[in-house]
């Protein structure tokens, strides 16, 4: 049996930031991630981030990822890759499956005094005829292929969805040498930041609002060789007679994300449904603790936002875990959290951020009224 002060699940921005804070405070930290590399989705964010100078603004996501990783390793954090948490057992025992799929896997049990769940989010799917065909993929999947693995998933792409992911990945597909034939969006307005839309418009990508994909056209092997689109009415139903076929070999879906909740549910944390944050999310306190004592959450798992908010929440979770371990005084921890909440408020501000601030407050208040004090699982 292995013993650690803190076990963190997910080595993205939230998990890394939590690890850094807990590690700096002197905790023994184990960071577990199922992927081949740490960093979560940060390394595929090769664009420069918005934000203030306190939030690495103007710095590329991949650069921030490298800095975080170095900081985590410098804080003495131990990282297990290709490792999947498969169970929480009484006595804060954590079952971890280690090893790649083609190897003999090992089940290791680790006892951790505190657990931080930072498992991120999962891309939503949109179902249309042929959506399971090879060549239809998540926009994030295409982004991973081009920016992390340096391989084009196809040559000619139709993007579905005009949120920031759809806009940014369209741009990055062109940087990787792909052609983006069109961006299709059912809503009457562009969902993401206009500056991201302007970048791809300048590059000649048509943005087809009030349109949707009705089918993927398949070649004899069953792979994508085209995309049928149609205009939609005010109820998002395809308008008969408006169908046209776009020649393409790849269809990427950017239809938003939802928090990855498997482990939160497994841990028995109380949930709430919040559409603004992408679906079910764990109730949590301003210390990022869930209804289950000693179990913390951070990042997109608590509601889909972006890397900077994930990072700040991760710091709070790490600080709170360290505080509960007696490694930071309540005063120190409280001051640190206060500063971070101020920075979070600056990120959840303005026409694009205010709703997230309101919804976050709603979740925090629901925690106060429904949970109050986290309970140990009996």
């Amino acid at each position: 049996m292995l013993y650690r002060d803190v076990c963190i699940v997910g080595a993205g921005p939230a998990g890394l930031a939590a690890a850094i804070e807990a590690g700096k405070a002197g905790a023994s930290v184990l960071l577990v991630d199922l992927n081949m590399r740490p960093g979560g989705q940060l390394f595929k964010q090769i664009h420069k981030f918005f934000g203030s100078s306190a939030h690495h603004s103007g710095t590329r996501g991949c650069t921030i990822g490298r800095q975080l990783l170095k900081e985590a390793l410098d804080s003495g954090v131990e990282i297990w890759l290709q490792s999947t948490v498969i169970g929480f057992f009484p006595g804060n025992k954590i079952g971890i499956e280690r090893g790649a799929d083609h190897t003999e896997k090992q089940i290791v049990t680790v006892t951790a005094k505190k657990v931080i769940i930072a498992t991120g989010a999962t891309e939503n799917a949109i179902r249309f005829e042929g959506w399971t065909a090879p060549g239809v993929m998540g926009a994030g999947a295409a982004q991973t292929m081009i920016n992390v693995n340096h391989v084009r998933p196809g040559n000619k792409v139709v993007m579905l969805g005009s949120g920031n992911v759809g806009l940014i990945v369209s741009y990055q597909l062109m940087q990787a040498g792909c052609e983006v034939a069109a961006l299709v969006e059912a809503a009457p307005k562009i969902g993401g930041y206009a500056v991201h839309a302007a970048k791809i418009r300048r590059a000649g990508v048509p943005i087809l609002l009030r349109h949707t994909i009705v089918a993927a056209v398949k070649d004899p092997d069953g792979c994508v060789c085209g995309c049928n689109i149609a205009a939609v009415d005010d109820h998002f139903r395809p308008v008969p007679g408006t169908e046209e076929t776009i020649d393409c070999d790849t269809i990427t879906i950017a239809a938003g994300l939802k928090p990855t909740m498997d482990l939160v549910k497994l841990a028995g944390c109380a949930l709430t449904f919040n559409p603004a944050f992408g679906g079910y999310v764990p109730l949590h306190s301003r210390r990022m603790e869930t209804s289950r004592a000693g179990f913390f959450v951070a990042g997109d798992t608590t509601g889909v936002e972006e890397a900077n908010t994930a990072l700040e929440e991760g710091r709070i979770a790490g600080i709170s875990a360290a505080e509960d371990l007696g490694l930071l005084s309540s005063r120190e921890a409280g001051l640190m959290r206060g500063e971070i909440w101020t920075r979070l408020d600056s990120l959840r501000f303005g026409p694009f951020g205010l709703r997230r601030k309101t919804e976050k407050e709603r979740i925090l208040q629901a925690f106060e009224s429904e949970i109050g004090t986290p309970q140990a699982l009996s």
Partner: protein
Amino acid sequence: MSLIESGYLEWEELMRLQSLPDADRYRKGPVAVIECVQEIPCNPCETACPRNAIRVGSPITSLPKLDADLCVGCGVCVARCPGMAIFIVDQSTSASTARVSFPFEYEPLPKVGEIRQALNRKGEPVCSGKIVNVVNPPLYDRTPVVTVEIPAEFANEVRAVGKEAAYA
């Protein structure tokens, strides 16, 4: 149509939402044109400017405001703006031509002297342009800034060039 319906700014919309340099200022030398019109939490342009000509202030969702008299059109903000929404327009070199600088992150990078199609905000070719400068110092963190020379009448329209060299 507005920006969030089309994805590009019409000149009138830009004039309404941002304060732009006046005609006198354009004739004096290169100057930044800030095409950032949404209140997003972002201020690297403010810290990038070596002459403190760009002000965002607090809250950081405020639109950046340019002091055109302080701006010398150096182009640092062009590379640093995460939204790629700042351009340098220079109408001082000759009466018949103008120069527009913009961020360009595609391969193949243009070469000085090369002719490329000059594109407007919708990506439509409006004229051909001669590449007169390509800069990409470490400070720009891999966002090269390209300057294209075009007929003066297109100074407010051209904001990019095509991805391949053209032959005029």
